[in-house]
């Protein structure tokens, strides 16, 4: 423990210092080498290896002058690895990022623009998917898929409590809470762990209340307004009626093994396709209903594009554009969506079909927001997450928790992160 605390926390960071500075350009003509870091978007490991191996082979068959390597990386420790790779100059040319990561790496000087990769078919992409990774009029990510989340219900739990229609609004959820609580079931799952992104927990509720995390121009936070209070109060009201899991303040949002699969919670407002499968396996496919996003003042869900970003250590940008353009192409897009249960990030690809849940998730895309991407979004999320925990634990009033978080967040913004 003494060794590891040091290794992870300090030594790794120090090594970054020691190895700083990127390699000099060593490209000497001939064939270009492009390395892509890919993540388990396709959760099944064998399927993932096979899929990306095929993409690699197909690409190289078409482009004999480019040597493509797609490396499979785990989700765990993703940022640490990417950050140290870029800082040390030893890493991928293209890497799969989320929009907020893209901005984070862009402002820290870790990325180069990728407009060159979408020159021919820019109009084919979903405008929102491009907007969210466009900074200072330059595109920093090529969308290769889109995620979608929506509500999912364990109807067996509702029916046992005498409720036949799944709740679709905040009022419905609140009304259903006592009957389910009487059976020891929380009506709604919620996860307050600091490791769980607020994009899947508090932010959708905030948006449903009509609020936003930041003001329009990103110069200030806005979550401490009446909408933010309404969203937090909704959670606290549910909690008071036994409507949230007992450990809601600290649990993570893992569906597999969590209350949604053990039957301790009856619904969620932010489920993804792989987690729908976990629920089906656990509580029986016939009991799982996937429906429209939850409605507060507004009907909103969370969904983001996955984008390929070009690192500042890449040596052959043209070759990297070719690769990004290929992986984002309609053919690869359609096959990826089939394999991963994701959705098209472009309008000229049909969504995967053949499953009610896929259809519901695809329909939910029209309500999807890709999060709020500002240079301090992550720090603000960490600050807010800690204060929300305090409110859910009852150690702070909702007003105080939001006000304290806002004050701290404003300090951060004033300092520029």
């Amino acid at each position: 423990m003494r060794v590891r605390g040091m290794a992870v926390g300090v030594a790794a960071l120090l090594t970054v210092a020691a190895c700083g500075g990127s390699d000099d350009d060593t490209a000497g003509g001939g064939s270009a080498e492009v390395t892509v870091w890919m993540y388990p978007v396709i959760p099944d490991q064998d399927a993932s290896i096979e899929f990306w191996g095929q993409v690699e082979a197909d690409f190289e068959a078409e482009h004999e002058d480019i040597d493509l390597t797609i490396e499979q990386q785990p989700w765990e420790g993703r940022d640490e690895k990417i950050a140290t790779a870029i800082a040390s100059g030893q890493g991928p040319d293209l890497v799969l990022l989320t929009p907020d990561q893209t901005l984070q790496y862009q402002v820290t000087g870790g990325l180069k623009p990728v407009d060159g990769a979408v020159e021919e078919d820019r109009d084919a992409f979903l405008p929102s998917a491009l907007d969210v990774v466009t900074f200072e009029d330059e595109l920093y990510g090529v969308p290769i898929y889109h995620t979608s989340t929506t509500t999912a219900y364990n109807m067996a739990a509702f029916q046992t409590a005498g409720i036949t229609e799944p709740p679709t609004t905040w009022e419905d959820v609140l009304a259903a809470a006592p009957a389910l609580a009487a059976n020891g079931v929380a009506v709604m799952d919620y996860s307050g762990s600091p490791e769980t992104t607020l994009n899947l927990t508090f932010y959708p509720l905030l948006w449903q209340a009509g609020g936003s995390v930041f003001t329009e121009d990103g110069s200030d936070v806005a979550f401490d307004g009446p909408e933010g209070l309404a969203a937090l109060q909704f959670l606290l009201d549910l909690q008071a009626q036994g409507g949230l899991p007992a450990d809601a303040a600290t649990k993570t949002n893992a569906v597999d093994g969590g209350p949604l699969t053990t039957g301790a919670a009856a619904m969620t407002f932010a489920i993804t396709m792989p987690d729908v499968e976990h629920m089906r396996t656990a509580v029986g496919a016939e009991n799982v209903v996937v429906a429209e996003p939850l409605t507060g003042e507004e009907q909103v869900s969370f969904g983001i594009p996955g984008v390929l970003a070009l690192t500042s250590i890449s040596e052959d940008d043209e070759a990297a554009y070719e690769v990004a353009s290929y992986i984002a192409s309609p053919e690869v897009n359609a096959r990826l969506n089939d394999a991963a249960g994701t959705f098209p990030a472009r309008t000229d690809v049909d969504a995967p079909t053949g499953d009610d849940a896929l259809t519901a998730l695809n329909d939910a895309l029209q309500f999807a927001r890709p999060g709020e991407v500002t240079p301090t979004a992550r720090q603000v999320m960490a600050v807010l997450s800690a204060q929300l925990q305090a409110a859910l634990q009852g150690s702070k009033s909702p007003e105080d928790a939001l006000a304290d978080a806002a004050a701290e967040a404003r300090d951060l913004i004033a300092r520029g992160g």
Partner: protein
Amino acid sequence: MTLERTAVPRPTWRQRVRDPGWGLLFVLPMLVLFVIFRFVPSLGAIGMSFTDYRLSGEFSFVGAENYSRLISDDLFFDSLRVTLLYAVIYVPLTLVVSLGTATLLHHVVRGRGLFRGLLFLPYVTSFVMAGIIWIWIYQSDGLINGALDGLGLGPVPFLTGNQAMVLGSLAVVSVWKSFGYSMLILLAGLKNIPEDVMEAATLDGAGAWAKFRRITLPLLRPVIFFVLVIETIAAFQVFDTIYVMTGGGPARASYGLVYMLYDQGFRFFDFGYAATIGVMLFVVVFVISLVQRYVLDRENT
């Protein structure tokens, strides 16, 4: 025989100089690794703390800006307080447990190797796995709370309650994980206490407790000092326990210094600021080690 022995020449001046050279040669591989992986990065971090180092490797010197920001950062003092509180719980606990187990092992007659191995086992266990299992043990419907429930007692919020409860629960896990190392050091210390001193005390009619207090503890003082220092340093570096089990929560109840460093460096990519926290961590640990040395060694010298 005697002739031959006197015939051996005395080492020349040159040979005497060369001897340390040979020694140096033997430790050279370790020394090189140490310099590359410890000294250089440490100096790099100190240098980095005066910059606004970015991912791309670009940076400019910002003087003491990171330090003035740190001094006005409430979060830094909060995390320092968390770390101190954790150390106050962890260090005495681990000392008592390792001293207790070492004393037991010292007196075990049969199967000494087996018991020593069993007690040392947690130290060589993967902490991430152990952490996940401890989360299950601590859960509101976990092992301990399940047993308490059987006795009609309410669930104890080990990892979800107030700060003292959370840090105490984390300290227990850390102690479980790492007492084996200190135990072995203390055991070696116990074995070094001369038998005749103990025998004399027994003849003088001293009981077990009196022997432990009047003889074992004073003679163990240098070893205890060493254990205290390394365990204090370990307490200040606590990271993996928190990372795996609480993520710094709930509501920053376990947000320690190294966790803050990790957040600044690897979540927010503010390497300059993270390095500043690292330097401050070094200063704090250094000062505390000096104080401990002064307090514990005072009577010895």
